[in-house]
């Protein structure tokens, strides 16, 4: 019987040949970045246009696909790989740019000069390496993202040829014991990336030691935090990296089957993970007989259906088990009672994605990156009022101020106002904290804040921080599973109060009530309830002056209904009639030339100021003597 490593080497022979031909193609190849972000930006239309132009000209090019490189603000992006192996990145490439790209690819070098962003590999006169782009200033080395731009994410052979699955072949060949696998993870300092930061190897040990033969290994791919798309990048960009992490996890936990619970909002990730599972099964890497060792591991994707609390591991396990996806009290922990009531272990996508890297390179290599307290690298996604939206992989401990610089700073020359890490259960940190913040959990603790799963939103002074607080209040209220009155009812009250304050009807006892709700919600079953008051608490802690101003009906950002109004400033401006026409509620009154807005009808949508800026204005409400009701 051939050894697992021999099986692996046999797979490599074909894989290496295929990948070499892809890296150094006989004729130039145009790879359109296909991922959820690029598709949203029109990548499929760009690809169709490129193929049309190439067909019309009978151009000597081929087409392929990659995942975007991280620079989402220049999507749709395209890579051209030339026969000498050099790869140049371009963006944004719209339909109208198709001819320029085809020309540049087929020998008219210079045709697409203005669209060039940099080289991904190889050299081209006058084109800098993409690594020199300021967006990547804080990425010393890509580990989790090492295959992006350098492989077709839908190709198992590409993953294999980049040394993928070598570590798992060695492990399954029984060259490493289960215990050593787990200890190596702990030596590396790998902790859960889903929020709770628990040592991965230790958690695997719980399932390994659990009774019975039926163990389930579960991947939490629910990534419910709005503003976080770290797990999506792994699954769409390098699906086999996650599969290999789970495969090693199956070995380290004695699991024969597993699930990937994947949110419905990620259709491309679902498709790519399902295809990757099929390909790995066909190659004998998953299924009944892994690398010829007789050991089985079967994986299935379970598609979620839009429930945030199914990201909590107990909610997730209930959801997999045909129940309402309601979180429950622990214990019992998943290792005692998990999927289908069998012993299970849940890890986040990125936690698993780190495993093959540690297995291949060792724990010392892993600890080269990051800080003493938190080793390794992490993928973060950055969004909000910044110039460059995208994702990068940085060592833990990177300076957040430098990250903001890499993201091009705040848009429109405005100032940073708040930093929002960690999604709806995360935090609102004031701009003044920026110089002290580094990307590691401990750095956020002094602000009663949480770093969380990797989404960081930067908010400018265009909005009151209450706008984000209200958004999250509504979110945690709507997503509460309803089991605990404290969480369900408390969050309803909290939302009502925040809205009242924003609408200029705040009451003196609202603040003590908010604090009481906060204390009360601590008595709820799961972390959803317990963490749900955090963002509002942060407002009272760090933005108190702003809260007080809102109570007085004042708001420097002019984003709160209670403190602002819309007014026709230049009645004779011709655009006022456009504003009248666009207003969805007919709030304009009077005749042309003498229009005014009825404040009671206006819903503050801003459609009028969109079409007639200056002629219609949003301004501070004139100060009126205001009765503050007591109680």
């Amino acid at each position, binding site marked *: 019987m051939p050894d697992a490593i021999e099986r692996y080497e046999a797979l490599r022979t074909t894989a290496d040949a295929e990948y070499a031909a892809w890296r150094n193609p006989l004729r130039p190849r145009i790879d359109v970045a296909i991922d*959820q*972000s690029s598709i*949203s*930006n*029109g990548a499929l239309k760009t690809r169709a246009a490129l193929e049309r132009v190439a067909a019309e000209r009978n151009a000597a090019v081929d087409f392929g696909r990659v995942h975007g490189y991280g620079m*989402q*603000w220049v*999507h749709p992006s395209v890579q051209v790989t030339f026969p000498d192996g050099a790869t140049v990145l371009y963006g944004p490439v719209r339909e109208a740019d198709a001819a320029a790209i085809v020309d540049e690819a087929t020998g008219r070098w210079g045709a697409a000069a203005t669209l060039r962003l940099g080289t991904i590999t190889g050299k081209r006169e006058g084109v800098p390496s993409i690594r020199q782009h300021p967006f990547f200033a804080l990425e010393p080395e890509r580990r989790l993202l090492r295959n992006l731009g350098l492989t077709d994410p839908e190709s198992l052979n590409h993953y294999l040829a980049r040394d993928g699955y070598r570590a798992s072949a060695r492990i399954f060949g029984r060259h490493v014991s289960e215990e050593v696998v787990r200890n190596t993870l702990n030596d590396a300092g790998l902790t859960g990336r889903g929020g709770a930061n628990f040592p991965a190897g230790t958690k695997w040990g719980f399932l390994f030691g659990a009774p019975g033969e039926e163990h389930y290994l579960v991947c939490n791919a629910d990534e*419910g935090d*709005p*503003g*976080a*798309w770290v797990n*999506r990048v792994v699954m769409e960009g390098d699906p086999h990296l996650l599969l290999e992490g789970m495969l090693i996890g199956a070995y380290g936990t004695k699991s024969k089957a597993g*699930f990937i619970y994947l949110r*419905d*909002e*990620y259709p491309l990730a679902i498709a790519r993970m399902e295809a990757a599972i099929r390909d790995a099964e066909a190659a004998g890497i998953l299924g009944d007989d892994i690398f010829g060792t007789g050991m089985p591991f079967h994986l299935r994707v*379970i*598609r*979620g*259906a*839009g*429930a945030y609390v199914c990201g909590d591991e107990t909610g997730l396990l209930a*959801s*997999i*088990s*045909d*129940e*309402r*996806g*309601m979180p429950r009290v622990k214990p019992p922990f998943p290792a005692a009672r998990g*999927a*289908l009531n069998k012993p299970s272990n849940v890890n986040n996508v990125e936690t698993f994605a780190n495993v093959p890297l540690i297995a291949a390179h060792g724990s010392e290599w892993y600890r080269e990156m990051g800080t003493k307290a938190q080793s390794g690298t992490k993928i973060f*996604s950055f*969004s*909000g*009022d910044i110039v460059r*939206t*995208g994702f990068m992989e940085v060592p833990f401990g990177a300076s957040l101020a430098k990250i903001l610089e890499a993201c091009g700073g705040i848009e429109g020359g405005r100032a940073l106002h708040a930093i*929002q890490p960690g999604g709806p259960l995360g935090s609102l940190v004031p701009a003044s904290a920026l110089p002290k913040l580094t990307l590691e959990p401990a750095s956020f603790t002094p602000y009663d804040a949480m770093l969380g799963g990797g989404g960081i*939103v930067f*908010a400018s002074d*265009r*909005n009151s921080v209450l*706008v*984000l607080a209200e*958004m999250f209040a509504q979110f945690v209220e709507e997503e509460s*599973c309803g089991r605990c009155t404290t969480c369900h009812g408390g969050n309803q009250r909290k939302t009502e109060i925040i809205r009242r304050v924003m609408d200029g009807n705040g009451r003196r006892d609202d603040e003590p009530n908010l604090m009481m709700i906060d204390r009360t919600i601590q008595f709820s079953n799961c972390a959803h309830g317990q963490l749900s008051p955090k963002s509002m608490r942060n407002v009272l802690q760090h933005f108190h002056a702003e809260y007080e101003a809102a109570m007085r009906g004042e708001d420097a950002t002019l984003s709160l209904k209670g403190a602002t109004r819309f007014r026709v400033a230049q009645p004779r401006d011709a655009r006022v009639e456009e504003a009248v026409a*666009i207003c*969805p*509620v007919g709030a304009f009154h009077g005749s042309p030339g003498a229009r005014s807005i009825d404040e009671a009808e206006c*819903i*503050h*949508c*801003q*459609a*009028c100021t*969109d*079409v007639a800026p200056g002629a219609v204005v949003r301004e501070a409400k004139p100060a009126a003597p205001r009765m503050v009701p007591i109680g």
Partner: protein
Amino acid sequence: MPLETEARAQIRALVAEFRPEHGDLLAAMHSVQHHLGYLSSEAMEVIAEQLGLFPAEVYGAASFYEEFRFTPPAQTNIRWCSGPACRLKNGGGIRDAILATLGLHDIPGDTEDGRAGVILGQCNGACELAPMVWLEQPSTHRIEFVGNLNAARAVRMARALRDGATIEASIEETKRA
């Protein structure tokens, strides 16, 4: 045993591959909604039979999730992104403008003639396009992304949909100023 109608047979075929106590409930509900647009009570009965559950258990689970619906969907849905990057760019005003244009009060909601609906969307990490919505046609599974909106563009788009325009024509409306 309820009567084996043609509709029932069709649902049965959609869920034939699923098994009890196998973690198949979500997949079964997705399959039915994908093909038929919503979960009818008949569909939930068939799913329950197939998976060895009570219909109440199926409804209990289905109603827990934002994605499942129990009445036929609108011809075109506007899926409004509720995420933070969109919210910082007047996502709230865009939502209110769309709802007002369609004469609706809340999400989810459909116009009376069933032409247009508004459903809740979650950030999927294309925040460079904020503020954005998705236009979805349940009958064809077509999804179009409409980014860099503002309230005025959203009103034009919603008016076009309300008045029976195609998805293309409605998106065209967002490209005018």
